């Protein structure tokens, strides 16, 4: 058990720090967090800066245009960028953290050449069209149909909760290419497609979140033609491809945010000392408990990263354990912030109020806590499958 970083790793950290200290002052002012078109511009500008400096796709394999960095270097990258207050992946989330890695792992050489460089340069952003009105937790129940017509699939159906659909160029889309039948498992007939968001027949209707933003949307697909060449993996083999995607989503998605939570907690303690809520035993001890929590979550991250490094870089199932605990801890953090702020917690002008609202999605998005518990129980503990 070794928590010290090697000389090489420390050198990498030092180079990155030096670059961040010159790059960050060049960024334009941060946009309104509720304004997604402005955030797209800001996030992709940041991605371009990373690309030019050679930090884009750090954890992607070199064949895919990445830097082939070790999981530990990626961890250092996430730690340092967050500490320096650099933008988080934001609008580039889907492209960088799951569509990209999926294309890198499962795509043809032509598909990699077409889709990966623009993701790394920040020229194109992706969204994720998995969920449907009647297929959320039960994702394999999706019904959006794709029918082969010559060199195209003709896609009809609807998707929901598609994050930043309004500003995306591409959509990683799951469609049904074989009907749901009594005798075959429903995940057998699913196919993974890359859909250009400017194709005729796509209607995006923004949905307003409880935070007031238009962060996600409904998508209506009416005979949208998607070239067969845009299919990643074989027809009806999309579920396996999706599992590759989801392991990336759960594996590394929250690392930087743990660092951010530790910073918020320290600020929260200072605020409490200033406004007197520190003298309340219950509040003070709750802050102490959260300190234990986020320190442990950071250590768990290092544990998982070390395990994945030993396992050849594949994110393990430990991601579900982490996600379960982290999502609740984050909500507790902002509930505690509300206790510290008192009536100020009802003021939307306060950053923490908005953060408190967004934290409510953490136990739902990317698989609800209930679904994560099922995964932990069935796949780690080996309990029998439920119905």
């Amino acid at each position: 058990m070794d928590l010290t970083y090697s000389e090489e790793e420390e050198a990498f950290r030092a180079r990155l720090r030096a670059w961040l200290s010159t790059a960050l002052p060049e960024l334009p002012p941060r946009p309104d967090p509720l304004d997604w078109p402005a955030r797209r511009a800001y996030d992709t500008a940041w991605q371009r800066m990373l690309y030019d400096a050679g930090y884009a796709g750090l954890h992607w394999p070199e064949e895919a245009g990445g830097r082939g960095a070790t999981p530990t270097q990626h961890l250092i990258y996430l730690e340092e960028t967050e500490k320096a207050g650099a933008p988080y992946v934001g609008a580039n989330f889907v492209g960088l953290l799951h569509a990209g890695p999926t294309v890198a792992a499962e795509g043809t050489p032509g598909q990699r050449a077409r889709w990966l460089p623009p993701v790394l340069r920040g020229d194109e952003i992706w969204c994720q069209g998995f969920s449907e009105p009647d297929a959320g937790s039960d994702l394999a129940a999706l019904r959006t149909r794709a029918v082969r017509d010559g060199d195209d699939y003709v896609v009809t159906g609807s998707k929901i909760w598609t994050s930043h659909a309004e500003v995306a160029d591409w959509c990683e889309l799951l469609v049904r290419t074989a009907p749901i039948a009594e005798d075959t498992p429903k995940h057998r007939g699913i196919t993974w497609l890359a859909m250009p968001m400017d194709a005729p027949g796509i209607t995006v209707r923004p949905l307003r979140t409880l935070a007031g933003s238009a962060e996600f949307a409904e998508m209506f697909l009416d005979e949208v033609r998607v070239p067969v060449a845009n299919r990643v993996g074989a027809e009806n083999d999309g579920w396996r491809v999706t599992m590759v995607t989801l392991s990336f989503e759960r594996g590394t998605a929250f690392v930087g945010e743990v660092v951010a939570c530790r910073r918020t907690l320290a600020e929260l303690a200072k605020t409490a000392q200033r406004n007197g809520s520190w003298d309340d035993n219950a509040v003070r001890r709750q802050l102490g408990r959260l300190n234990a929590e986020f320190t442990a979550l950071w250590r768990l991250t290092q544990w998982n990263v070390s395990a994945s490094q030993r396992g050849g870089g594949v994110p393990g199932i430990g991601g579900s354990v982490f996600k379960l605990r982290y999502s609740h801890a984050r909500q507790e953090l902002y509930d505690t912030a509300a206790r510290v702020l008192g009536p100020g917690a009802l003021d939307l002008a306060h950053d923490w109020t908005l953060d408190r609202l967004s934290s409510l999605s953490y136990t739902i998005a990317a698989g609800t806590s209930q679904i994560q518990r099922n995964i932990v129980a069935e796949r780690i503990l080996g309990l029998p499958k439920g119905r």
Partner: protein
Amino acid sequence: MDFQLTPDQIALKSGMRDLLAARFDREALRAAVERPGLDRSLWRALGDAGFFALRLPESRGGVGLGLPEAVLVFEEAGRALLPGPLVATHLAAGTEPGAADGESVVTWADGPLTAWLDEADHVWGDTEGAVPLRSVDPLTPLHRTRGTRTHVPEAALLAAAEQLGSASRTTELAVQHAKERMQFGRPIGAFQAVKHLCADMLVRTEVARAAVYAAAVTEDPDEIAGAKLLADDAAVRGARDCLQVHGGMGFTWEADVHLHLKRAWVRAEQWQSADEAAEVLARSL
């Protein structure tokens, strides 16, 4: 950075598990419950295996290992519910004659509670006016004492390691039972309410594990406080959930679950309580 057990650490941990399986299996545990008292020959066997002298330098007759290794063997002790003032004797090794090789038993008057007072050969701290309690844990005799807390971070960490071992054991026991016990024509582990209890037990255990192991590596007192707090929680709640998964069976003296719960309660009050740890952690923010 490589925050995983080394092959030597894995071997040490499994060696300790084998030793305890041979010397303190379930039968021995249940016998100890019926006939309380410290088994001196087992204590010496632990001494021979280097349990107490683990961190003494080789030049002083010890094994010369560090806190991470101590944490791994204490985790195994917690898993097996090994009784005795293990932490105090381990800390006394090299200072108190006979402690290192298990020839003597050392206890420490740790603030409000002192364990194993009557059986100890050496007692550290102030035990004046000690009053015996009818200890809730049949395997840990307790006295009420009025001394002040000792605040030895290493002691809190080793107790946390025992809690971690207990938490992983109760998780295992619950999962095993959930796979075997049939109700409504299926194993109860197929029911989501049971599944989710088990999943939460595992999550609490793994978070505590990361905290305990990291604190052993950094030896940072704040991190140790966090590890103790999370491990206490994992052990106490793990035992309660395990009891629930066992149904009526869980409420019997016959099932081992209550022994884990009672010991976890005792350890939660030893060396550093949750409130004390939370105060330390708040101050370090």
